[in-house]
């Protein structure tokens, strides 16, 4: 028992980052993290409140259906999250190899890690599912008993997803092993996931904002209500859970829920006990298993060889592919969704002339996110940083190659964004508010900003690189350069976007002379400004670069 508790304690402490040296920087970082987490949580709960309002206090409330759908969605999400935790924490955790050297058996490791997964799932239920039931209680004027029943429901809601996750973790591991080194497939799946996730979020947000604006529940049409009613009557076991909260057929529903839970829990326990040790060992063995590529000796120019190496390092890493390639490829569609949302709201409130400014804002924000990857250009070299010092290629040349890669990827993404936005929002449906000249101007400004932000990001990383890499040679944490560059990029995005929006309506005058009369005037001003920022960042990066690079020390 003590061993189980020790492993569990170690797991919890390592996941929440305790036990490390408490420095002033760590405390500030913790406070900032807590602050941002609270902000995000508040935004989430507010959004949830509005979505709930549509179903619970609209023209035709559907409270029972609300409970079925939200409980069902929560349990599906919990199952997915718990499967992820089990796969990552139980089967693919590097510390398993370490733990197995000590006098603990597979069963103890499994129990400790399973308890950790259960607690994680329970926390999700507490912080995300319970507020749903509280909102339900507030909006339907439920009695005090509802809030207690809801609390008692949380372990039940957690246990079934936990048991199912234990069962499906095994096939998921086999699938993971199957696609492990199929990098193109992984990248394609990640792009689809990002686009669908973002699209779903934006559609929901649009519905909520439209409802908040004019109480017109476009998100919940009559057809949608009828669909939800039909769905709620059919989706077992979620409707049994909803019955308990709703107060309908409580005893029977509770007995059924408990019976199902016990069955699945027992099945999961028996299956896991029999297989877990073998799978943990197999996972340790497969961890170092790598793919084989029969390549031939081919002479490439130095620049191409450096570019190819940079690309392969990103492409063959799940983390880097997601952070960079998936974001860059998915960005044009995300720009479209953001523009669609912002323009529909802006159009009804201040008019369609706001669209070019909004496009500028959104495009620059996505550039910032994509280019932030350049903030770890040097740090990502990790343990092989020495190679960059010993090869007979000038440092400025190596940096120029990295810069070219970032410029090409970000430029491709911006070009696609401009084409999509121009062709969709330039049409009659949106009042022809986006013209070809707008897109050319936004693209040109964005190009200068890509150069500027990439150069700044690389400069910062040359100044303060962090070579903290994990077992797989990848950076453990994004360094502070990433957040610095994102903050700066967002500032530029807001400034450039808002400036274009304002000048579309209000001329800028100095004395009696009109300096900027419309969006075109603002484009000229912003082009000049972005050009100056780009040139100065470029010069700052390459000025005495060899000396600064030479002074970088491995840590």
């Amino acid at each position: 028992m003590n061993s189980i508790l020790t492993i569990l304690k170690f797991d919890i402490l390592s996941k929440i980052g305790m036990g490390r040296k408490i420095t002033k920087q760590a405390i500030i970082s913790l406070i900032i993290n807590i602050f941002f987490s609270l902000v995000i949580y508040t935004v989430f709960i507010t959004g949830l409140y509005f979505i709930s309002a549509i179903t619970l206090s609209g023209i035709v409330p559907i409270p029972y259906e609300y409970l079925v759908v939200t409980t069902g969605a929560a349990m599906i999400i919990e199952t997915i999250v718990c499967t992820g935790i089990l796969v990552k924490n139980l089967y693919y955790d590097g510390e398993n190899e370490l733990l197995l050297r000590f006098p603990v058996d597979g069963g103890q490791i499994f129990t400790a890690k399973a308890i950790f997964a259960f607690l994680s799932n329970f926390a999700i239920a507490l912080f995300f599912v319970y507020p749903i039931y509280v909102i339900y209680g507030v909006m339907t004027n439920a009695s005090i008993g509802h809030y207690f029943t809801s609390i008692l429901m949380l372990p039940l809601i957690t246990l079934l997803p936990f048991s199912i996750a234990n069962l499906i973790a095994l096939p998921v591991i086999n699938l993971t092993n199957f696609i492990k080194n199929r990098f193109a497939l992984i990248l394609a799946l990640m792009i689809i996931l990002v686009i669908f996730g973002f699209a779903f979020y934006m559609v929901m947000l649009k519905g909520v904002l439209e409802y908040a604006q004019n109480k017109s529940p476009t998100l919940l049409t009559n057809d949608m209500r009828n669909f939800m009613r039909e769905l709620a009557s059919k989706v077992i076991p979620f409707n049994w859970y909803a019955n308990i909260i709703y107060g309908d057929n409580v005893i029977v529903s509770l007995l059924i829920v408990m019976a199902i839970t016990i069955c699945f829990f027992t099945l999961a326990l028996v299956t896991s006990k029999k297989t877990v040790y073998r799978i943990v060992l197999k996972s340790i063995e497969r961890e170092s298993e790598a793919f084989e590529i029969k390549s031939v000796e081919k002479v490439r120019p130095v620049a191409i060889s450096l570019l190819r190496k940079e690309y392969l390092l990103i492409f063959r890493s799940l983390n880097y592919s997601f952070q960079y390639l998936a974001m860059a490829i998915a960005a044009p569609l995300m720009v479209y969704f953001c523009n669609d949302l912002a323009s529909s709201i802006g159009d009804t409130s201040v008019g369609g002339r706001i669209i070019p400014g909004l496009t500028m804002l959104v495009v620059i924000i996505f550039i910032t996110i994509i280019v932030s990857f350049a903030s770890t250009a040097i740090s990502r070299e990790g343990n092989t940083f020495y190679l960059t010092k010993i090869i007979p290629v000038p440092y400025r040349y190596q940096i120029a190659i990295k810069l070219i890669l970032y410029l090409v990827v970000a430029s491709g993404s911006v070009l696609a964004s401009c084409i999509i936005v121009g062709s969709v929002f330039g049409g009659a449906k949106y009042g022809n508010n986006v013209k070809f000249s707008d897109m050319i101007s936004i693209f040109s400004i964005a190009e200068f900003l890509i150069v500027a932000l990439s150069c700044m990001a690389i400069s910062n990383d040359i100044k303060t690189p962090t070579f903290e890499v994990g077992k797989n040679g990848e950076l453990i944490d994004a360094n502070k350069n990433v957040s610095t560059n994102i903050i700066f990029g967002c500032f530029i995005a807001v400034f450039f976007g808002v400036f274009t929006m304002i000048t579309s309506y209000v001329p800028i005058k100095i004395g009696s002379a009109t300096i900027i009369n419309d969006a075109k005037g603002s484009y000229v001003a912003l082009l000049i400004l972005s050009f100056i920022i780009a040139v100065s960042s470029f010069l700052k990066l390459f000025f005495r670069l060899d000396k600064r690079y030479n002074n970088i020390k491995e840590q």
Partner: protein
Amino acid sequence: MLAVKELTKKYPNNDYISADNISFDLREGEIFGFLGKNGAGKSTTIKCITGIIPFDSGNVSVCGYDINKDPIRAKMNMGYVPDNHSVIEKLTGREYVNYVADLYRVSKSDRIERIRYFTNIFNLEHAIDKQIKSYSHGMKQKICIMAALIHEPKLWILDEPMMGLDPQSTADIINYMSEHSKKGNTIFFSSHNLDIVKKICHRVGIVNAGKLEKIIELENNQANQSALEEEFFRITGGGLKRNTLTYPSANTTSTNSSDLEN
């Protein structure tokens, strides 16, 4: 081939000088061993010579090219094997060696011939097309060596190359070092293994507390070879302590199952 003159390096946050006024010259075809305790300044000196870290004063020239003034030409004539065997693990062995060969502008025919040769002598035929992350410690070391030698460098620098290698791999590397030097190339390597150094080196330098204390001729000098160990311990002071320290008694610690459980 390699001329180091009054090389001095002090790390900003350290109280002591890591490389203190170090000077030596290496001849063509020579194997030079660089000896010293842990932390004596061997790796720092090597990193300064290879251009990995800047140094405070002095000069380093490789084949007549100053590492600071003409670094690209100097590096073109140098091959380096680090002590941590770090290689780009996401690439396959062949991809990695080809990548390095591109950077040193090695022709296709040369690299085909050399990769085949090294793959054969290092027994890597089965692994060369696999991703490096699946390699063992010794295999990574061998890939490092292949990459360092793919351009046939005139100066080959190795930082503790035998560390953690099996006897077969060690023998393979020793044999290749001799072979490489016979072609007129120079080898400069740091090591803790005095037996190997005695066996293959023409000369050795012993460094202590950042200073190059002594250079000893070993080639055709049986007396110096025999006295190397004694001389090493005399300079570094390590040998005396070995006999004065006592190992903690076995009965001072006890272990039982309840301790383990807690």
